[in-house]
């Protein structure tokens, strides 16, 4: 059994905790969060040993692995403390807010042979895996354009009350939504080498961006577009889509389906005819041992557990891969500096992030 602890029992944290506790190879020995009402409920009704102080937990418990699901600003120091204690680490996305921190942590993990993973769960969605497979097969010919989109109904009025609405904490659609879309580009096609024409715009928020648009440039000469908006109420929940155009066709994938159009059959995809080929999540999803909110959340936890067991140090979503996304975020911030426009002038209301928003927000 892999003795595991969790820090950050917020929105993703509780969902992770449920999945971690259901995993047959993981023994969740403790959880940590500064919010007393949550840790009280979990210790009283879920029988979980809880700490309010992270360092106290690291000192007191004998651990093999740590899962970090705290606000983004806290990732770097907590991951560092865990690596220094020789723990394998799963960290929620985005990995770090400062690329230099990420480089240091990657080196630390490498020198101590630690397993690392970041929670870019879309890499475990069947339809996106299929898109990556199709693109990497070369069947699309020369890829010349990519479009990554993410839309959803997170900020729909002028207010700001949680860490997600604070720029300094790693909030905003850039860190919450855009980094998922960027990681999908990296996963399905390639990491862009440059960005231009960046628009970061607040629709309702005061301190952070609600929409991000940018042109992406790739080493092979291909271009891309990033289009992200978390202030779109017409979506029931976050909706992410990637399209890749090549000289021999196109692939479009979202969480539910992967659509391929081939102008001509290609030897890399035997048996696939020209024209449309559509595959659905029912066909593309691998069975998981426990389901909560989507196969991908369980699949990524299982992948981490297997990596720890097999000492797989360069797996999917390693710190090094996740830092590729952080580097693009840094470029987006750099290109947009001085251009970002913030709307929303009303005073902020203070309120606490709650249990339900932690689960479903």
């Amino acid at each position, binding site marked *: 059994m892999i003795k595991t602890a969790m820090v950050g029992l917020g929105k993703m944290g*509780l*969902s992770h*905790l*449920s*999945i971690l*506790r*259901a995993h047959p190879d993981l023994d969740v020995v403790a959880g940590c969060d500064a919010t*007393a*009402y949550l840790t*009280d*409920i*979990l210790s*009283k*009704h*879920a*029988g979980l040993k809880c700490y309010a102080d992270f360092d106290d937990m690291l000192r007191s418990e004998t651990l093999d692995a740590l899962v970090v699901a705290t606000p983004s600003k806290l990732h770097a120091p907590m991951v560092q403390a865990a690596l220094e204690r020789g723990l394998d680490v799963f960290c929620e996305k985005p990995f770090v807010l400062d690329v230099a921190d990420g480089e240091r942590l990657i080196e630390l993990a490498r020198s101590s042979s630690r397993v690392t993973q970041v929670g870019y769960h879309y890499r475990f969605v069947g339809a996106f895996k299929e898109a990556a497979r199709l693109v990497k097969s070369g069947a699309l010919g020369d890829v010349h354009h990519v479009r990554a989109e993410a839309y959803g109904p*997170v900020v729909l*009025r002028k*207010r700001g*009350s*949680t860490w997600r609405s604070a720029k300094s904490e790693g909030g905003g659609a850039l860190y919450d939504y855009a980094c998922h879309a960027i990681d999908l580009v990296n996963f399905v096609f390639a990491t862009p080498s440059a960005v231009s024409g960046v628009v970061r715009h607040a629709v309702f928020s005061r301190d952070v961006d609600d929409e991000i648009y940018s042109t992406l440039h790739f080493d092979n000469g291909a271009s891309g577009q990033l289009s992200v908006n978390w202030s779109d109420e017409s979506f*029931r*929940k976050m*909706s992410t889509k990637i399209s890749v155009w090549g000289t021999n066709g196109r692939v479009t994938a*979202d*969480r*539910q*389906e992967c659509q391929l159009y081939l102008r001509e059959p290609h030897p890399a995809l035997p048996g696939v005819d020209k024209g449309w080929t559509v595959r*659905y*999540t*029912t*066909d593309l*999803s691998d*069975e*998981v*041992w*426990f*389901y*909560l*909110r989507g*196969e991908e959340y369980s699949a990524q936890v299982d992948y981490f557990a297997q990596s720890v067991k097999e000492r797989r140090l360069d797996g999917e979503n390693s710190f090094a891969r996740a830092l590729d996304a952080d580097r693009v975020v840094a470029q987006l911030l750099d290109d947009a500096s001085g251009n970002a426009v913030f709307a929303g002038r009303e005073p902020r209301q203070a*309120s*606490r*992030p*709650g*249990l*339900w*928003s932690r*689960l*479903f*927000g």
Partner: protein
Amino acid sequence: MSQPALPGAAPAAMDRVLFGDNQFFGVNHMSEEKARAQSMRFQDLGAIIEVLDAAYQEGIRTFMCTSHDRVAEICDHFRKHRDKYPDYRFYPCMPYAHKYANAVTEHGMIEALRMFLPQEGAVAAMLKGGMALANKDIEAIMQLLIDAEMKMFHDLRTPVVFMQNVITDLLLGLRMHECFRIFHDHVRARYGAEPGYITMNVPRLLDALDALGIENPVVCANINKIGFRMCGGVVAYEDAIAHRRFRPVAMSVFASGAIPPREALDYVCRQPRIEAVVFGASGRANIRQTKALIDELSVSR
């Protein structure tokens, strides 16, 4: 409430065919485009009632639905036209989680709890007093949340009340199993209804309910030939259905359209202990065909 508690009464039989609500609220596991088209069509309450009427005319008199805000409008319609649907019943599934999420995002947890809970009573006083939720009696709060969700169904028949899978499975993984008992006892005592649990993890949930001493529970889960979202696998599900004591309700029997109708329903109807099948559809022809197939395949067993 319309039904008094009947402690010790034999559990009521469920209808063989139940009508689901995903299609009305933009939930489609196959295609986001299709989901959007459906939410456009069903913005209008009249369009929803038309489909429910079609199902009713085909003999489907149970509507299994989330406690979505729009379901309140549907409930109003059925209360107003009671004579038209004398034997109609609802199987509420709670909660519609996004409703809470939105309220909490906007107002914070304590405020949101206040909004969903009654203004009077000990818990409201406790929240007003700013007492830490730590001491909170999880049972009292859960009961009040259930009551809040049940409000829209007042004076309607609700013989089975379900806990939604996102909550069931979250609690299951967290090992907060006592919440299943709280739900069970309150639904029985307050509503004289049979508590049900929706899950994607049948074998694991049955273990938890067994340990709590909850006997012969109603459990609704994906049951389909290709094993789509059946954690533990098709074989474990078939084995549980054949040998364990619970009342299975099959949903997602077509696996979002991945299995042809006859083949899908044949698989489900071949397992005689499956009590009911829930499906959603938007057109009368589709409803008629599905209902007829279930009737035909159920009779021939």
